[in-house]
């Protein structure tokens, strides 16, 4: 392989100390490499620690064992090469859409007069050119995600980390956002690590789909290459025969884990 590895998780283990002193192992020995320009989706049942793994790649969490390498350098502290798209609303509520996008540049020391026109350009490219003066609470959930996407992309990070970014949106908006993401990604092909619980979304978007087992101590249990041609249209690709074959194949593995995860979460609820 000649393409450099953007993100490498090397037997990363994530554990938390619980309130009563016991140690809860969320993820066990995760080994995963994302090449430059590669779009990798992580799929797993609820509570399998896939978001945790993303936080490790972001440097927000330190692995209990193993390591993280970003472009072949060990990661210490926050991952400065990565942009992070959160599942929950992460915009600054006291800033307008335009200021929310511009802040990404202003932090780096770009003068405001330069940052604002660029922010306006990015807002336009996510389809919100006319909403620059709105505050986050005046935007719909989908529009807020668009602003968040512009906020992350304006910094031109080499790596994109996405934590179920379209999770809170309705089905139609998700597909529209998926296409928007693919369009923007196609322009310069950053390395993407995309966490979702939606297998269809994962196959439609990604080059590789990675499956995690149900938690606790979840592991990576499968890795499929998606060879559907690009550029893709999310609406179209779902009708493809190859899409269906792949979906059936991955689902046969994922299904057991989903049932296990579901059983565990109900047991846990009963125990409480």
């Amino acid at each position, binding site marked *: 392989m000649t393409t450099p590895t953007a993100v490498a998780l090397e037997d990363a283990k994530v554990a938390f100390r619980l309130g009563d002193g016991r140690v809860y192992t969320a993820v066990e020995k995760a080994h995963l490499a994302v090449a430059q320009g590669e779009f990798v989706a992580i799929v797993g049942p609820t509570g399998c620690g896939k978001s945790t793994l993303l936080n490790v790649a*972001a440097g*927000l969490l330190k692995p209990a064992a193993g390591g993280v390498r970003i472009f072949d350098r060990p990661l210490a502290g*926050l*991952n*400065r090469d*990565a*942009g*992070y798209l*959160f599942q*929950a*609303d*992460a*915009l*600054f*509520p*006291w*800033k*307008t859409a335009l200021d929310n996008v511009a*802040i*990404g540049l202003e*932090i*780096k020391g770009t003068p405001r007069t330069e940052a604002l026109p660029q922010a306006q350009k990015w807002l336009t490219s996510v389809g919100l050119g006319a909403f620059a003066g709105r*505050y*986050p*609470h*005046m935007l*719909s959930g989908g529009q807020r995600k668009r602003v968040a996407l512009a*906020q*992350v992309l304006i*910094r031109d990070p080499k790596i994109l980390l996405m934590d179920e970014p379209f999770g809170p949106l309705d089905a139609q908006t998700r597909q529209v956002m998926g296409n928007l993401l693919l369009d923007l990604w196609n322009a310069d092909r950053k390395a993407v690590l995309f966490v979702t619980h939606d297998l269809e979304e994962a196959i439609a978007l990604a080059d590789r789909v990675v499956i995690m087992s149900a938690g606790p101590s979840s592991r990576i249990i499968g890795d499929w290459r998606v060879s559907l041609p690009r550029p893709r249209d999310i609406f179209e690709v779902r009708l493809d025969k190859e899409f269906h074959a792949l979906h059936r194949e991955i689902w046969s593995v994922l299904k057991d884990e989903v049932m296990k995860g579901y059983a565990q979460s109900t047991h846990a609820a009963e125990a409480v």
Partner: protein
Amino acid sequence: MSRPTLFALQVLVAVVCIVLWQVLSTVPVFGKILLPPFFFSNPFDVFSQIVKWFASGVIWKHLGITLAESILAFVIGSLGGVLVGFWFARQPLVAAVFDPYVKMVNALPRVVLAPIFALWLGLGIWSKVALGVTLVFFIVFFNVYQGVKEVSRTVLDNGRMLGMSERQLMQHVYWPSALSWMFSSLHTSVGFAVVGAVVGEYLGSAAGLGYLIQQAEGVFDVAGVFAGMFVLSAFVILIDYGVTLVERRLLVWRPTASDGRG
């Protein structure tokens, strides 16, 4: 209900109350005046007292003093509250150590401090400012403390991932969050600043609305007491309106309750 109807009804309440007051304090009912003028005065006397104050211009000096005391109490108390609130929220150890003392001081009815402040700072405006500060400080302090502590985890993480330094987090995340909490208590804290000033004046001073009321009371001039009260409430309503205007300007980014989208 349309706005004019509502307004008409609101005015009606005032008219009924004033007419009742005037009638009951001047016209005998079954040979007896129900509101003896000595205790209740009457609206006409109260009104002429107010007119006399404004016509002669004496009231402006007193209003000016009370306003100055309120503003000083508000500014100093808010500043202190913001600084200490920030400090405590960012240093949990300091907050934990001082916690019982903060609670103790806050539990104290502030009126009992007035004689001490008069003793320390004299009968001029500063003893009243000090009393107002003790009231304003705690409201602002608790709100800012809460505001800084309850910054959304996701928004903070987002700031960090966007590359913010601690200083930038302060400027773009903690500070606006704390300020928004402070502004949400603006009405209360401004109100308390006025209370501190007036109570301080009432307990010992040479000028201000509280002084005016206390003087009238001292000579059993009930009309003067009521006149002072009316001027005082009009004063507070005007200030409160000003606060509403400021608030609307500063908190445009906040969803209002009727917004639905939250």
